[in-house]
């Protein structure tokens, strides 16, 4: 198996590095790639920063590990290769009446990546994260292959959950699917003029909805700071459909209709253009609407409609700042938005969600409380300092940043935010004693053994 040299960056298009990219199609080829280091697996490159990069080493694309078993209708499970994307999976399962138990804001992630980042979705407050719905997976480690379940080796199972690839390369996984009657989502929408209003509504009402997310405007100041559009819903039953939807109750997700063909100069997305976009988004939403039917794509993956939208941020790239804090520190959400708006940092609509309890993973990101995620273009000179200050505030509140989004956290802050990282390293030492597995991210935050 021969590879090629490629300059790789994350979705944010910052800090690219050169690596030998190989694309094994068999388990023997995976074992061959893991025989020496440094090496790390990569899926569709949707992590914003550097976890799927390995400067001067080998990056193992998991896209050659592609197979789908038939859906086991009795148990509602399916076994898939780690390189299968959620998009490819949903094209098969939705017409059969099954949805993935957890989906992030894009379908363009692989199952292997979903495990390595232990992704979460709009239903975390009720259903937990991706790994809560993985029955088992097969993992290639430098010491050999192993099938892992929560019972067979809980240490390895949970270290792999959100372990950013440090325990090995996921070969395939058996996922527990969610039965659905239709591919439509019944959505209640509500607009709030300020942050307190939307947070109060979420704290009291989210338990009544499987899915909930608020889009918060981080660029308005004063009394309307943090105005928001809250959308909450659940899969619609057949009885709720009429017209076109009733004739085709189980439609697979649509392919992207638009594409950003080139990278425009940095600065196209600036305070002015982003403010205008946020304003339009807010005005477009109804003040209050109940039980509207949305397609799966438009509700779960609105940005998937535009291929390569990350190019819009220009050659300098962008980053996403996502943190979680517990319920006792909900004020950090307000502080973060205030800091960004008072420092004139242009930021797209931020995503605010409720989290349920985290899982046993030593690098589990969620914690019962709040999570806020916001996209910021790289460029404003004050940005690095403002975000470093936010790190302090989040850490002080016992919160943490999401590694799948991070591209700038310091090693010291990582150690503070993830005090259980040593548990992951203990497992990594067991399955990778010579330390073959590492990435630009693990070197940056000091997650090495």
């Amino acid at each position, binding site marked *: 198996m021969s590879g090629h040299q490629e300059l790789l960056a994350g979705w944010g298009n*910052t800090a690219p590095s050169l690596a030998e990219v190989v694309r094994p199609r068999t388990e023997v080829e995976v074992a061959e790639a893991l025989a020496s280091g440094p090496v790390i697996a990569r899926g569709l490159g949707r992590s914003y920063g550097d976890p799927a990069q390995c400067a001067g080493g080998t990056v193992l694309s998991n896209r050659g590990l592609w197979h789908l078993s038939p859906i086991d209708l009795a148990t509602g499970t399916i076994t898939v290769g780690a390189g299968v994307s959620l998009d490819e999976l949903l094209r098969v399962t939705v017409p059969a009446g099954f949805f993935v138990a957890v989906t992030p804001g894009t379908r363009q992630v692989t199952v292997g990546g979903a495990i390595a980042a232990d992704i979460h979705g709009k239903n975390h407050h009720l259903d937990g994260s991706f790994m809560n719905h993985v029955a088992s997976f097969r993992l290639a480690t430098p010491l050999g292959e192993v099938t892992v379940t929560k019972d067979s080796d809980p240490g390895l199972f949970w270290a792999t959950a959100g372990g950013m690839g440090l325990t090995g390369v996921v070969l395939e996984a058996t996922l527990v699917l969610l039965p659905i009657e239709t591919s439509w989502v019944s959505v209640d929408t509500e607009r709030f003029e300020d942050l307190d209003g939307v947070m109060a509504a979420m704290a009291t009402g989210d338990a009544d909805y499987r899915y909930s997310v608020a889009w918060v405007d981080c660029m308005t100041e004063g009394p309307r700071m943090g105005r928001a559009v809250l959308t909450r819903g659940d899969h619609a039953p057949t009885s709720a459909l009429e017209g076109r939807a009733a004739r085709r109750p189980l439609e697979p997700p649509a392919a992207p209709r638009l594409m950003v063909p080139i990278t425009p100069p940095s600065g196209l997305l600036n305070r002015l253009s982003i403010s205008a976009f946020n304003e339009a988004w807010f005005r477009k939403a109804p003040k209050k609407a109940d039980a509207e039917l949305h397609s799966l794509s438009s509700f779960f993956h609105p940005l998937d409609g535009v291929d390569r939208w990350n190019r819009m941020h220009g050659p300098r790239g962008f980053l996403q700042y996502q943190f979680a804090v517990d319920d006792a520190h909900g004020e950090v959400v307000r502080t973060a938005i205030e800091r960004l708006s008072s420092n004139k940092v242009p930021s797209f609509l931020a995503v605010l969600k409720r989290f349920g309890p985290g899982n046993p993973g030593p690098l589990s990101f969620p914690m019962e409380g709040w999570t806020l995620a916001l996209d910021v273009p790289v460029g404003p000179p004050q940005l690095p300092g403002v975000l470093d200050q936010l790190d302090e505030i989040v850490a002080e509140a016992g919160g943490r940043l999401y590694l799948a989004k991070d591209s700038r956290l310091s090693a010291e802050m990582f150690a503070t935010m993830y005090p259980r990282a040593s548990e992951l390293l203990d497992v990594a030492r067991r399955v990778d004693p010579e330390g073959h597995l590492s990435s630009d991210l693990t070197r940056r935050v000091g997650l090495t053994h």
Partner: protein
Amino acid sequence: MRNAFGQPQSVLVLGGTSDIALAVLDRLCAQRTRTVVLAGRDEARLAAASERLLAAGATTVECVPMEASDPSSAPATIEAGLAAAGGRVDLVLVAASILTDQLEVEDDATATSQLFAINLTWPAAALAALRPRLLAQGAGQVAIISSVGGVLPRRDNYSYGATKAGLDFLGIGYGDSLRDAGVKVQVFRPGFVRSKMTTGLEEAPMTIDLDECADAIVAGLGSSAQVVWVPAKLRLVFGVMRHLPRPLFRFVASRR
């Protein structure tokens, strides 16, 4: 590793007692830089620089020997510097330089060849030794301190200017050669900076102090510019000056 803002965690400084380099490092250590390797000759000054950087936020400062007057020693310095940094380095700052009085070197073959060795031949050899290591590590950044003195030849510093013109030329081509390898190379062209190197010299227009210079270099390190003028307005000034007829330029330059 460099983060999304290009902030390095480890830095190798060639010319580790340079005022400009140390002022830049003060700022980098306040950000993400924890490991610094200083290559230099004067042990007492290197020790003082180490103390200063540890106070600024570095956790490890190592010193390696460097003899800039002997270009054949450059590969050994690069080897030792990378080893001291842990095998790989995020940023290499090329800052070794001397500024001589034009009247003292222009009739002196030995002094002139020494000036060229220190300012040009040694750095060129070091960059050549560094190149395969940068390719192998697949990421990194090189910052080369050139000078506006190398942009246009002037009566009163053409020898120094020639060394910087050579380094500047080399740096830009070197950057192109590493462009697709994940390595960013930048050439910085400071104007007149108040430092120990310029003590006693008559100040030029638009002279800046060390802090302004270091701030501009740190900001430049985070940019995608291949050539960074310090201060930025010098780019405009030289954009005009390079089109002046030579007799007019001589007149302007001699008036300063």
